[in-house]
């Protein structure tokens, strides 16, 4: 059975051209050298390729190439930025600010820092999934040394006003880290005009390979970090370890393509989302999660009330999507992001994230929408909650066993 992939927020396929470039940097006949080898052409050629990739990424985000540190992915970038900055500047203060809807790769380092004696404020989003500059302004104190917020939420597609928040943090001398794993290569960002100090990047979210990412570290004003890895002093001492040339080349090529295609990609996603929504919007009792004005069109998160998300995914077996349902997570907890929006647990259990991308076609979204409609209908037919709702029973008033 042909599968339709609508889980681009989870990961993206690598562009064919990117794969080709990567394979040129591995074998004996290729360019396999260690970019840190200064004594022969093998090293020089590899170094050249790494620097070209750095330039491509710098062009994509509008920064100086020297501000880019290669890492193994956004999780490492988040860890390096958050733990690195907090530990380096700990003598300036012990207060940190983040939000409740961050990725685990941000929340977990903060938990670790709490164990080390830091105090963390976790901002709560509004019901649309937005964190406002006013909340940040209210949360920071003269002890605050770091604010960390995501650019685009991975479950909802909501976008934080990082430019405005950057102005605020800069005026107060607070380091501002942004987890941009979901947004880079998809929506524009310009590091030369914003006041973000640290920015986490992941290649596999924009048609590059898995296992490689980057951290932007601002030079002016200079941001310092305590490294996580100690060793050969690669990447200006921020991240020791032999550079993964083929991975970095892949990221660089994906960045080059993303820079060229971003506007077209965005227009295409707007269109796909519009078509999909037109088809499903009349289904009774559905709720869009993260219904914000400032939102990425490639992610649409919908709760189908009275239908459990995992069973809907099973019914949609030819469609690859993800759910905030507890049943799809190892922890048996429903999505903490949806709960943070104040959604009832049952709506979190009933949520499906559809995420579209470069290879999604209009036919894909039309087919999916039809299948969603019929599957929701069929699952509701076997749902006791739907039956009660149809009978006019108020489900909130029932004492559940």
């Amino acid at each position: 059975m042909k599968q339709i992939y609508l889980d681009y927020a989870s990961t993206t396929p690598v562009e064919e051209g990117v794969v080709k470039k990567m394979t040129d940097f591995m074998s004996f006949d290729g360019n396999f050298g260690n970019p840190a080898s200064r004594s022969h052409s093998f090293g020089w050629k590899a170094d050249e390729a790494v620097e070209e990739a750095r330039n491509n990424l710098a062009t994509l985000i509008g920064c100086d190439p020297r501000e880019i540190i290669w890492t193994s992915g956004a999780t490492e970038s988040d860890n390096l930025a958050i733990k690195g900055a907090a530990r380096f500047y700990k003598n300036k203060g012990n207060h940190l600010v983040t939000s409740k809807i961050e990725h685990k790769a941000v929340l977990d380092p903060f938990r670790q820092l709490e164990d080390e004696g830091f105090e963390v404020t976790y901002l709560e989003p509004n019901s649309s999934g937005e964190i406002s500059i006013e909340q940040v302004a209210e949360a920071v104190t003269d002890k605050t040394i770091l604010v960390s917020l995501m650019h685009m939420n991975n479950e909802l597609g909501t976008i934080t006003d990082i430019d405005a928040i950057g102005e605020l943090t800069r005026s107060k001398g607070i380091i501002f880290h942004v987890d941009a794993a979901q947004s880079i290569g998809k929506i524009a960002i310009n590091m030369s005009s914003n006041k973000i100090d640290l920015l986490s990047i992941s290649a596999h979210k924009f048609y590059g390979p898995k296992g490689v990412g980057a951290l932007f570290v601002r030079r002016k004003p200079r941001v310092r970090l305590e490294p996580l890895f100690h060793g050969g002093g690669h990447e200006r001492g921020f991240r020791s370890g032999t550079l993964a040339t083929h991975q970095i080349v892949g990221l660089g090529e994906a960045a080059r393509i993303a820079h060229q295609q971003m506007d077209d990609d965005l227009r295409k996603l707007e269109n796909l989302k519009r078509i999909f929504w037109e088809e499903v919007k009349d289904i009774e009792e559905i709720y869009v999660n993260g219904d914000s004005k400032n939102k990425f069109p490639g992610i649409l998160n919908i709760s189908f009330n009275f239908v459990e998300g995992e069973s809907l995914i099973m019914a949609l077996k030819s469609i690859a999507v993800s759910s905030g349902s507890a049943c799809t997570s190892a922890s048996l907890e429903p999505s903490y992001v949806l709960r943070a929006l104040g959604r009832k647990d049952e709506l979190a259990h009933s949520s499906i994230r559809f995420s579209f991308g470069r290879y999604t076609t209009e036919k894909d979204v039309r087919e999916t929408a039809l299948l969603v409609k019929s599957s929701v209908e069929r699952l509701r037919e076997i749902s006791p909650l739907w039956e009660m709702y149809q009978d006019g029973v108020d489900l909130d008033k029932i004492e559940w066993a």
Partner: protein
Amino acid sequence: MAYSQKVVDKFEETLNNPEKASVGRWKPGDEDYHRVGTGIVGAPACGDVMKLQIKCQNIDGKNRIVDARFKTYGCGSAIASSGQLIDMLKGKTLEEAQAISNQEIVDILELPAIKIHCSVLAEEAIHRAIDDFKSLRNND
């Protein structure tokens, strides 16, 4: 979700032909409703709710389950577990039905460890339905 083919089959059977899979309900006012016991277990906030109804008939002095219907809100294995339970109930006396253990459902469907609670829910559902049926008798 790494389900066994048995869970997948049972789930799809139920979804594709709900009537054959005994999805449905008896409502107050239906003929024989006085012979129906209902058990509702689980909670929407936990992600699964099972509603089981058994229709009983006194045959040779013993109450037997002559028919059963269900509706389930929950993950694929909760729906499959309900369907499996229904298959096991029909024709059983109340004592036999009371003795069904969740482990039987786990074994038949090869439920993964993280989904065992679905079978527990099914066991609770039949206990509730039997209790409900018995309380109806007492009210006669």
